[in-house]
Each structure stands twice: as structure tokens, then as C-alpha cells.
């Protein structure tokens, strides 16, 4: 059982949760994640440790409410307990002074990006950040990212903030401006990482992505999270989550992510109905 110390909405449908977990706060390294079980009957869902405070013994998770588990977790209150958390999992990011690192965050992908970018900055890298979102309200960790960036750009699909367009447009712009780029780090929806990787491949820019495959145990014993990297099957939870973006078969990843779509919808529908019964006026989650 893990005490929830704080929970708040930081953008529409994106929640930040601060949890009392001293050992995890002490052991975590940038790039690693945890498996969270909300309630006794809950799934094990992977979430990145977005921030930590080892002195206070706290970790921060930032999650987007996309389905049953994350919506239900978003309804939890400070003072309640999460059923279980296991971690830290996955290989920590290899951090060194590369030179200039472009950090690209798409949507909630900024949450896993932040601790890595922060560490990269501490190592003396020149950090260029590009954050992308559908509209201006959906950005998270803007201030935190801006603080650690040497250059900071934003893009929105609808033009409500920053460049009107996609993160790849901004990246193309940087490349065209002749800037020397030593590493591109992209974390976000699979489709975004795919297009970033396709672009950087053209210019031979080393590219690291962090994959969000479906997981069960997160410890390497089930193979649910397998992806093809360079034609070889890898387990995201133990071999990753970071891989060379030029080697990843993103189309396969996206197909596998959709494997339980119908069942997920069923679970979500049931949850929304239950919530409606509790809150006759509809509740803010009823659609």
C-alpha cells in the first residue's frame, strides 16, 4: 500500500500524483518506470517516474486518463492508498555529454521526458526542447522543461500556441537552420516517434525513443511488451524502454497497442455507467 500525498489535474485529463515511496525515490534513475496497481482487482500499468524527491521520500507520476485504469486512478484522493507499486523497472537512460540534445515531448510523453532532459542538462548538454500538443491547454510541465532548456519551442495542431504544426515541422526547421545536433530524444505517441525517427534517419541523426508497449508484469517474464528492433524481438520492460528509433518497427508496435481495444472499451463503458449511478448529475467523466 502506497500513500497518495497529493493529486491534481495539471491539464485536461492529465493528473499528477505525488506518492510516498522512499525506497523508490532513492533507487530510481532517469528513464525508469514503475508498475502501478490501483486497487486489488486492478491491472498492472506502467508509468514513468516523472520526478522524485529522495529527501522527502516522494515520487511523482503524471498520467493521462485514457481508459479504465487511469480514469479510476484519477479519481483517487490524497490520503488514500494505491494497492501496490513495483519498480524501478527498465534500463536507466544512458546519460553523458553528447553535445546538443534535442528533446521532443508529445502530449503526456513530456512526463517521461522531463527527468531524462533534466539529467542531460546536468551532464552539460545543450538542450533544445520541442513540446507538441493538440492545443495550448494540453501542455504539461511547460515551465519545468523551459527552465532546463537552452532553447525552447512549442507546436500545436491548431495553432493556439507556438508553431502551428507538428513537432517534426519544428525539428525540420532546426535541421534546415544548420544546427549541429548530436542526439534526438523523442517521447510521445508511437505515431509521433515514428515520424520523428523517419525524419532523423534521412539526416543520420542518432535518435532515442521510449516505447510504451502493453505490459503485464514489467519484469521480463511474460513477453507481452515485445517489439521488433532491428528485426530482433526485444522486451520493452527489460531491454528498454529506450531504443534506437531507427531500428524500431513502429507499425507493429501500434498494432500491438490496439490488441485489447474492444475489451478496453467495454471496461471503460462499465466504469462510466457505474460512475453515473454514483453521481446522478452525470459526473465530469460521463461523456
Amino acid at each position: 500500500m502506497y500513500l497518495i500525498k497529493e493529486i491534481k489535474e495539471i491539464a485536461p485529463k492529465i493528473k499528477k500524483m505525488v506518492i510516498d515511496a522512499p525506497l523508490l525515490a532513492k533507487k530510481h534513475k532517469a528513464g525508469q518506470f514503475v508498475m502501478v496497481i490501483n486497487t486489488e482487482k486492478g491491472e498492472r500499468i506502467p508509468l514513468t517516474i516523472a520526478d522524485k524527491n529522495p529527501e522527502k521520500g516522494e515520487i511523482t507520476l503524471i498520467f493521462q486518463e485514457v481508459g479504465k485504469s487511469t480514469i479510476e486512478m484519477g479519481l483517487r484522493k490524497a490520503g488514500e492508498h494505491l494497492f501496490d507499486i513495483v519498480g524501478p523497472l527498465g534500463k536507466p537512460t544512458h546519460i553523458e555529454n553528447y553535445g546538443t540534445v534535442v528533446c521532443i515531448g508529445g502530449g503526456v510523453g513530456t512526463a517521461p521526458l522531463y527527468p531524462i532532459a533534466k539529467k542531460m542538462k546536468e551532464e552539460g548538454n545543450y538542450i533544445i526542447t520541442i513540446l507538441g500538443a493538440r492545443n495550448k491547454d494540453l501542455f504539461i510541465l511547460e515551465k519545468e522543461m523551459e527552465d532546463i532548456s537552452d532553447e525552447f519551442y512549442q507546436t500545436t495542431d491548431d495553432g493556439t500556441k507556438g508553431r502551428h504544426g507538428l513537432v517534426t515541422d519544428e525539428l525540420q526547421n532546426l535541421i534546415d537552420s544548420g544546427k549541429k545536433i548530436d542526439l534526438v530524444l523523442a517521447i510521445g505517441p508511437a505515431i509521433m516517434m515514428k515520424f520523428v525517427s523517419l525524419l532523423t534517419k534521412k539526416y543520420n541523426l542518432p535518435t532515442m525513443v521510449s516505447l510504451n508497449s502493453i505490459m503485464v508484469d514489467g519484469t521480463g517474464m511474460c513477453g507481452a511488451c515485445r517489439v521488433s528492433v532491428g528485426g530482433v524481438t526485444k522486451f520493452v520492460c527489460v531491454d528498454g524502454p529506450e531504443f534506437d528509433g531507427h531500428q524500431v518497427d513502429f507499425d507493429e508496435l501500434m498494432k500491438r497497442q490496439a490488441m485489447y481495444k474492444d475489451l478496453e472499451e467495454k471496461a471503460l463503458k462499465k466504469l462510466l455507467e457505474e460512475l453515473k449511478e454514483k453521481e446522478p448529475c452525470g459526473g465530469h467523466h460521463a461523456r
Partner: protein
Amino acid sequence: MPDKKWIPQPKKPRTPIPEQKPEERRRNFKEVALGYTPELAIEEAYRCLQCKTPTCIDGCPVGIDIPGFIRDIGEGRFEDAYYTLKKYNSLPAVCGRVCPQEDQCEEVCILGKKFKPVAIGRLERFAADWFMESGKTEDFKLEPPTGKKVAIIGSGPSGLTCAGELAKKGHKVVIFEALHKPGGVLVYGIPEFRLPKKIVEIEVENLRKMGVEIKTSAIIGKLFTIDELLEEEGFDAVFIGTGAGLPYFMGIKGENLNGVYSANEFLTRVNLMKAYMFPEADTPVKIGKKVAVIGGGNTAMDAIRTALRLGAEEAYIVYRRSEAELPAREEEIHHAKEEGVIFQLLTNPVEILGDENGWVRALKCVKMKLGEPDDSGRRRPIPIEGSEFEFPVDTVILAIGQGPNPLIQETQPDIEVKKWGIIKIDESGKTSKKGVFAGGDIVTGGATVILAMGQGKKAAQTIDKYLQSGEW
């Protein structure tokens, strides 16, 4: 009760065990075999000859006094039978159910020469179940505290056994388990219909009563390394019982299609995460109409029979050798057939074919024939040229074996490993690193519950000696 004269009745047919009917049980998760009643148990016990030099004992990896506990049962002293078993085997309710008896104790029971062997496993199960149901509390004889602390990594049968033995010796024991529930394969792998989870829970609870502390969701290699356990966390010795949980894939085309599972994933979703209760439980599992499991061991049987219970209309075992080589327990093969599983023997998949959306649509297989025996003594399957055929299925589960979990070996390179990452130990259970011991599937590769327990027990004896003498 005074000892009666023992008049064995070996010619009586082996006493059948009451079971759920195949038509019923193929769609529910309740236990298949219901167990002997006291009358049936006594009847079966009396088939035993009470041999002066019992051969059966040699067949049992932990050397249980088999005639001893059978005599206890025959004479109605069920509690005595339980304690006789417990002297050798800390999990009799589990072993009575899952040991491959036909290759162990029952294989060498003298009765087997002329008649059917005594149903040793069923009797063992009876004694253990009787004790659990009697509501009696177990009398643990614990030695006074020694002040020594031992870390056990993994809570499968090897770790549980090692923990129990060390607790009895008065050592402080802490088990670290990666998953959120203790029990290893007994909880995430072997299904409820073969081994009710309640039994594992009771055994784990017993360990707690003995003072063993169990830390779940604690992965050694991530949360702590073994060095940290020894140097910073105050442990005097460490036992590694992390099992063989790494699922193997075949390396054929199409393995990453949707609808393809490792048996580990499939069984973990259903057993540990309770996907059979979806959407009451949150973890989903996908099961098609036509399900093929590749492999012929216990894991394969568990997977296919689980698929049936989740509603599969057609259930196939695809195995590359013949019936005689199927490595699963005899009883499981028999049960699977009764439940309607179809065995596609001498058949090997060469590719998994998908549809345009990335879902499995068929298996491409080749027919096999048996050649000369290989290293394992089993006849080697050879593909028959030109025999390829397509076999429409919508779910494929790979149950072709598991390798040792690699996490410990990666983070602790000073522990010597053999081929495939199997941890090397000497005959007493010591690894190459001082203060560190190992046992179970992590040192044997996928084996059996009783072998894992035997090794856990052996290591506990060595650990106890080491803690007392300090000598390596």
C-alpha cells in the same frame, strides 16, 4: 488407535479419485479432482505392501517415508500421516497434486510390476487436505532465535521451502518477491483447476506464522542488489530461488502478431491477474474460437485447458514429437483429452500467418517423423519434406519452455553462470559467491516443484551450517 494387523490388498484395483465430469469441468475453474474421502483413502492405503525395503522411497526426490505415512492413513491416524509427510516435504498438498508421480515414486512402487502402483500422490494429497480442513493449527517447532538474517529471493517452491527450514532453525528470514503475490509458478502459472490458490495461501500464511517476513513487489537487482543485501541491509546469507520465468519464443515469422501469447503471459493474465473475471478484474485476455498451443509439457496442457475454460470452441495441442514423448504429467494429458483437446502430434509450426490488421489467422505447419534418439534420449523429430499445410486458428499460445530469469545474473556478474544463464552451484547449494546460495529452476532450468523444494531444503541445511561456523 492401536496398530491393527496390516493385511495388504494389492490386487484390489487402484482406488479411483472422484472427479468433476469432463463436460462440466471443461467450462469452469474449479478443481478437477475432488480428492479421496477418508474411506477411499484407507481403502487405497491398504493396497500398499509395507515393503521391508521400499523401492518407492528411491523414486521420491525428497525421500519421504512413504510406507510410513501410508500406514498412518490406513490406520486412521491422519494427523500422524500429515506430520510424517511434513518431516520430508513442506508442501505435501501441492506435491500430492502436481508431482509427476508416474516418473517418480509411483514408477518404482513394487506393485507396479504386476498391478497398478499405489496411488501415493493421491494419498499424500488426502493427508494434507485432511489436516488443512480439520482446522487444526500446525505445531511449528522453532529453535531459539540465532540473531542471523537470511534473504530469500523468489517465493516459488524452492524459496518457500528454504525459508521454512531456516525459520525452524531460529534464523530471521525475509523473502523478496518480484510479483505482488507470493508463490511463484504455483500462483501465476499452474491454474486453479489443478492447484487451488487457497492451498498456496495457507502455506504462505504458515510461513508468516513461523516469523518469516514476505516483501512482495520487491525485485532484487532493481530495488537492491545482492551486494547491498549483504553489505548494507544486514543479511548474513542470500538464497536465490528466482526460477525459470523467461519465456522462449520459436524465432519463426509472425510471432509478434496480435493473438500470439507466450504461455507465461496467457497464464499470468488468467491466474495472477484474474482475467477470467474481466471486466470485474481489470486485466483483459483475448481468446479466439480456435486456439492452438504449441508444446507438450505441463505448461502447454495448462494453457490449452485454460483456453477451453475461457470459451474456446476448438482446442489443439501442436507437438512435434509423438504421444510417447509428451513431457506433461500423464494425468494432465488424460484430462485434456477427456475435456476435448485435440492432439496434433508430429506437427511443427514453421510460420504464424496474419491478416491485414495484424491478427493471427493460421498456423503454417510441417509434418514430422521420428528419427534417432537425441541427447535427451527422446527420438529426434525430422520434418517430412513437402508436407507443409495451413491450419486456421485465431489464437496461438507458445509453450515451448522457459529459461532462467536473467536479472540477478546481470546485476551480479561475480556469480558464476553456466549455459543459458543457469546459476552454477556445488552439490551443497553454494554459488561461486561467498554467502550466496541457489536452488530450484534457476539452477536446473525448468524442472519440477519437488526438485525445486528438494534443493531449497538442501541449501537451507548448508546455509545453517555456514551461519553457525562462518566457514565457506
